[in-house]
């Protein structure tokens, strides 16, 4: 007997579902995380190729033409998702069309815009719209994740008005003091992450309520997207020129700014903890991977001397062992 049938029988025996309720449905054909990742990446890349192909064929040179292509592709994606609600046959085609459509819409609306804030806010709005409209779990998960990344840029560019990556460093490669004062760095971090954490915690705490309504179709992908966002978006919060391993930034004097990647590691560990609560070991793995990437960023990106970094890691290590011992004792008491 499958686990689903076993559960249904238990629910029936306890009177939670009526005795004459229909038999248990077949278990869902859920994709393992690595397959979902592979298919998501393939769909995303195909979307870019679709857009390049259409660009080469139609050679759209006006905003209206690009907008029309974006709307047509997004509409086609919506239609395919709607027609094939189980997303079995055309989901990859729909995903590619959806990605291509979003890129075209972003291109059409932002090609003459120089304000980072406007770009970030528009992309955030676009991802929220896709999340609300596209009737598909994968599309909503990707939109929620991209919305998290866009949100980090919305907050950053709100606190550092301007237009490009040189907002963060002067010509000597030294960190610029934000126009509204240094206090905005910490406030920016809190403004970026606290709303996302609060939303995630609220969704997890109210799980049984939204599972009992149609909101489950939105809340489940929102949780996955938020977990991915908390774990990985920290990488995107770097200035554009420093994404991933921007070795050119070695030696920049950043003083206590050096602690920020450690906060990103804390976010990734929090995401892993929440993913464990959902028993999603694929997401736990992604969060652990993200934590290791943040550690590499700590080594490469921030110019506080390596000696200080070594000392910081030593202190962090000892603190983590102490916290682990305390938790272990509590776990034993609870058990």
């Amino acid at each position, binding site marked *: 007997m*499958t*686990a*689903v049938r*076993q*559960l249904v029988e*238990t*629910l029936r025996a*306890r009177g*939670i*579902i009526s005795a004459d*309720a229909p038999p*248990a*449905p077949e278990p*869902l*054909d*859920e*994709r*393992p995380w690595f*397959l979902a990742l*592979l298919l998501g990446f*393939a769909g995303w*890349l*195909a979307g870019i*190729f679709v857009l390049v*192909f259409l660009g*080469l*064929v139609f050679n759209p040179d006006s905003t209206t033409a690009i907008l029309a292509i974006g709307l047509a592709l997004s509409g086609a994606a919506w239609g395919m998702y709607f027609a094939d609600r189980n997303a079995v046959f055309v*989901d*990859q*085609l729909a995903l590619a069309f959806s990605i291509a459509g979003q890129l075209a819409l972003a291109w059409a609306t932002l090609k003459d815009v120089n304000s980072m804030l406007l770009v970030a806010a528009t992309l955030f709005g676009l991802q929220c719209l896709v999340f609300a409209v596209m009737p598909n779990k994968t599309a909503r998960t990707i939109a929620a994740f991209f919305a998290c990344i866009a949100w980090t840029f919305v907050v950053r560019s709100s606190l550092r008005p301007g237009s490009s990556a040189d907002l963060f460093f002067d010509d000597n490669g030294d960190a610029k003091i934000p126009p509204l004062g240094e206090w905005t760095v910490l406030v920016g971090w809190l403004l970026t992450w606290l709303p996302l954490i609060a939303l995630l915690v609220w969704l997890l705490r109210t799980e*049984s*309520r939204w*599972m*009992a309504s149609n909101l*489950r179709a939105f809340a*489940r992908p929102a949780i996955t997207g938020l977990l991915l966002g908390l774990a990985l978006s920290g990488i995107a919060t770097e200035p554009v020129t420093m994404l991933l391993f921007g070795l050119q930034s070695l030696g920049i004097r950043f003083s206590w700014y050096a602690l920020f990647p450690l906060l990103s*590691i804390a976010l990734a*560990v929090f995401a*892993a*903890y929440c993913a*464990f*609560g*959902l*028993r*999603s070991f694929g997401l736990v*793995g992604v969060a652990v991977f993200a934590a*290791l990437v943040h550690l590499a960023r700590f*080594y490469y990106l921030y110019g506080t001397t*390596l*000696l200080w970094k*070594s000392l910081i*890691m030593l202190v*962090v*290590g000892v603190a*983590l*062992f102490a916290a*682990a011992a305390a938790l*272990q004792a509590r*776990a034993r008491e*609870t058990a």
Partner: protein
Amino acid sequence: MESKLTRGDLDALAQVYSLDPAAVESMLELSGVRPARAARLQFLASSLRYGGVLSLAAALVFFVAANWSKVAVFGRFALLELLLLLFVALAFARPPPRFIGRGALFLAFITTGALLALFGQTYQTGADVYELFLTWALLGLPFAIAGQWGVTSAAWVVVLDTALTLFCGWNPRGGILWAVFDGSRFTVTEAILAAAALNLLLWIAAERLALRAVPGWVCRLLLSCAFGFVTWAGVIGVMDGDSAGMNGIAIGGAALAMLAVGAYAARQRRDIYPLAVVLGSLVIVVMCWIPEAIHNDEATFFVMALWLIGASTIGGRVLTLLTRQWRTERAA
């Protein structure tokens, strides 16, 4: 009830039976998908302990990289050697699978690499970077085996594959491996295929022996590394990238690896991860071949998009069905 259920299964049940919030709450409790408070605390404590070990390892590496001039060369070597002795002594006193033993052997493995790096940094031996990683992998192997811990095994796999990637990618002439892969007798393609074969052999050995030191996720890491090299060889082959005319061997080697792993996984009927890796590799290799075969920009992008959509749709569908079929067989 043992929890083999996913949140997706429970969402479907809530929908099919129109459960109210109280009923959903009961279902969540009965299904066992929510870890108990003790289990959550245990997970958090384990995560923090792992984090503590990794932080100490990072502190060690950062310290060596800092090349602190206020400590003399003798002092730096003495410090690392004393730490190495301390970690080994700790592992003897509290041997694995106890956490202290595992953590100590992981730190001993990291210290081995730090010592080698310090040696190269101090004496400017002129060795290539790949030699550092390769020597580290060889000298650190006893710690990886004795550690009986996936984290140490995974670190060892990463170090070994970093060495192989640097060797194949930078193609340096000289050093340990060139005693075997001499430039006049072997090409880069053959070195890449050898790296793939080594990883595949390690994967098969780990699968068959089911060692505690190499849990399932490390086996998957080995297979992923193997297919990194397989894909690399395939891409070189289809893009006519081997100057020594070994393109056929590159494609043949990649195809053979895909077929062999696919057949092995289909025979085992246990895990679809190998098939997913084969699918990913095939998709990339063919995608790189398309621009070589079609010399028209519009057609190239159209066919590449078509290939990605078609291959991922069919491949994804087949693998999803196999997942269900193998799961059902196991349950029966």
